[in-house]
């Protein structure tokens, strides 16, 4: 992992601070209601973990914020950012057909899509920008490979690189650490922290409560409805976790928590 890229974008980044406000948000598919009456604010520059059991509505909530599914009731208000260009969404890996013949570099460069559009010219600095992003995730040596040749962990790194290229004020990550080894997830977690330090508004759906306790200042505990939403320490109490259908977390921050992230 090398040092942060996109230095050129740093100036504009500071001026864009995305704030996402949910009001009585209800989202569903057909008969099923997946997210019900969730209200609250992802403040500009906040780093929030979205935690819940399988089927609790984490992915649906992220889909709704990303504009992939329309709210059934209620509203999502995004202030301070120009959506869609200022919103990056990292999906669960299985939603992408990796057999498509595209190189890793081209895939990562697609992050600039929102600023190029269907017809726009590809600018000469796009390639170095994508290479920087690949370097930041440790994939620069595989830039010329086809997407289908990557391992699961490498593909996840490529997805992160695409988010870097998107350079968005709001970043949504859907279970970015599922099914990858500890080294990869530690690397990627560092990127998440970097985005937080850069002032982006970051929301991450994930399962690992130790990671949440160690890294994420805020947590939204979801079980279709919002069970709790606020500072992680006050959100992940044993009673609330039981209410959300999750097992209790370790009692207080034990030594195991430290291996997730160096401070």
């Amino acid at each position, binding site marked *: 992992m090398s040092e942060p890229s996109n230095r050129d974008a740093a100036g504009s980044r500071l001026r864009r601070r995305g704030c996402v406000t949910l009001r009585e948000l209800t989202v569903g598919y057909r008969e099923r209601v997946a997210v019900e009456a969730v209200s609250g604010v992802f403040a500009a520059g906040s780093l929030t973990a979205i935690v819940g059991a399988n089927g609790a509505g984490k992915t649906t909530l992220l889909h709704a914020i990303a504009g992939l599914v329309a709210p059934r009731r209620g509203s999502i208000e995004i202030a301070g950012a120009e959506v869609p260009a200022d919103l990056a969404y990292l999906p669960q890996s299985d939603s992408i057909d990796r*057999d*498509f*013949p595209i190189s890793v570099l081209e895939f990562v460069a697609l992050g600039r*899509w929102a600023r190029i559009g*269907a017809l726009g010219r590809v600018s000469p600095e796009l390639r170095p920008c994508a290479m920087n992003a690949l370097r930041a995730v440790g994939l620069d040596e595989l830039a010329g490979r086809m997407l289908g040749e990557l391992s699961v962990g490498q593909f996840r790194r490529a997805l992160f690189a695409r988010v870097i290229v998107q350079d968005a004020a709001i970043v949504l990550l859907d279970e970015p650490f599922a099914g990858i080894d500890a080294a990869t997830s530690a690397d990627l977690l560092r990127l998440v922290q970097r985005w937080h330090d850069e002032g982006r508004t970051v929301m991450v759906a994930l399962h690992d409560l130790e990671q949440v306790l160690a890294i994420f200042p805020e947590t939204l505990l979801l079980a279709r409805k919002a069970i709790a939403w606020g500072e992680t320490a006050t959100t992940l109490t044993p009673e609330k976790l039981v209410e959300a259908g999750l097992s209790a977390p370790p009692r207080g921050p034990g030594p195991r928590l430290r291996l997730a992230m160096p401070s």
Partner: protein
Amino acid sequence: MSLWSILVAPFSEYAFMRSALVACMALAVASGPLGTLLLLRRMGLVGDVLSHAVMPGAAVGFALAGSALAVLSAGGLITGIAVVLLMTLGTRFGAQREDASLAAFYFASIGVGVLVVSLRGTNLDLMHVLLGTVLAIDLPALVLIVAIASVVVTVLALIFRPLAIQSFDPAFLRTMGGSDSAYRAIFLVLVVLDLVAGFQAFGTLLAGVPLLLPAAAARCWAQRIGPLVGLSIGFGMAAGYAGLLVSYHLNVPSGPAIACAAALVYAVSALASASRVLATALNATRPS
């Protein structure tokens, strides 16, 4: 018999052979990129169904106006687009999975089409609708085919980037503000247009040949999009040329001859690809 008289003379001597050749080339140019995208989107079956969806409309056109090309094509375009709309609505609101409704469209189209042609025409007319008459392409038909091919290529060039992204990561396109269903619908209309152009030459049974077979063969040789499209076009042209020659020298129907040539190209490509895979596997197991 000189090489010239085998390979070139049929086209230099007969205008109808030249028209057929130009039609095949135009269809290959439009079908190469379109078929490549269709297969990359795993929609080969959709292409096949749409080629039959053209039939009921063309049949009604035939019943109303005989073999007037404009009416046949307009009819085919209408039912083709109607099926695209029904498919789009069906996937969006229907409880059915797409493959089930595709099967229904496929058989309904053939049934209705054959029925309507039989009401007014002879068995020969039916053969023309089913298998086409590439050697009977006159100037207006040629103009129509080349015009449609030009439109298809132009629109594809304009929206190739979103279409390619949509092929493998539709959610990304939508988070970037692109409309999934709009691009899908435009793409399918282009496929219908291409099939309407191919209908006169290949009939509804074989209209999918230039669309699917060259693109499928290209996938055995190339990995990247550019070479895939280029090879598809090349294979389509080669199959058209070879099929017409075979049809001329052996006095066999031209549409099926071109289909066989395209199938041969695919078979050779698939064998070559299979032998490469086998060789790699053997090398991997051999102790070094």
